[in-house]
């Protein structure tokens, strides 16, 4: 079946604007994760959903960042009042389960966000 799909693949925006990044997980995966990756560094955890609820949002840097997963499948990461420091690749991953199960996370190709 299809892997994790992220849209758009690239997003260019201006400082202060609002952006939405979309993630379609692998069908049947109940757990969904958002990470942010800066150039030359490993992915940094942002938020994790088990079903519709955010099980762990400890990685969100501030209240400008918000994510939803209303039907337990597709998720949207929302960034308000974007800043140049938000420029990075935003990665989404999904896994069959979350807590208590083998946690192989499968990643999408990411959305490259550039804030001018």
């Amino acid at each position, binding site marked *: 079946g299809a892997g994790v799909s992220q849209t758009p693949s690239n997003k260019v925006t201006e400082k202060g604007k609002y952006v939405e990044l979309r993630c379609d997980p692998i069908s049947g995966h109940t757990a969904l994760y958002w990470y942010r990756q800066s150039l*030359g560094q490993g992915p940094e955890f942002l938020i994790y959903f088990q079903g519709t609820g955010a099980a762990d949002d400890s990685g969100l840097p501030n209240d400008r960042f918000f994510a939803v997963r209303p039907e337990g499948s597709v998720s949207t990461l929302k960034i308000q009042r974007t800043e140049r420091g938000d420029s990075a690749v935003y990665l989404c991953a999904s896994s069959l389960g979350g807590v208590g199960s083998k946690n*192989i996370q499968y*990643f999408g190709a990411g959305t490259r966000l550039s804030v001018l």
Partner: protein
Amino acid sequence: GESVGLHLPTLSVQEGDNSIINCAYSNSASDYFIWYKQESGKGPQFIIDIRSNMDKRQGQRVTVLLNKTVKHLSLQIAATQPGDSAVYFCAESVFNAGKLIFGQGTELSVKP
């Protein structure tokens, strides 16, 4: 802990040689570890995982070794091929915590 910067550690090997990529992890409570491969412009791709009740696990051409005493993880790639050229990340988690904590990454360059 590992230093963070724009310049990844680099390992350069000849095609056909074996490669060993090392990783130090930070959390003594971590009990699940994964190696990912990331090619330019792509997301991380799962290679192999290991739980803390094991010290070695083998896959196809890859072996992961875990030393919990010194909190060290290594990935061995046998008969390295040009297609193995990528950045390799280790990641750790507590088994029932969900999130992965990634290391800095090592860039593997394979010369034909």
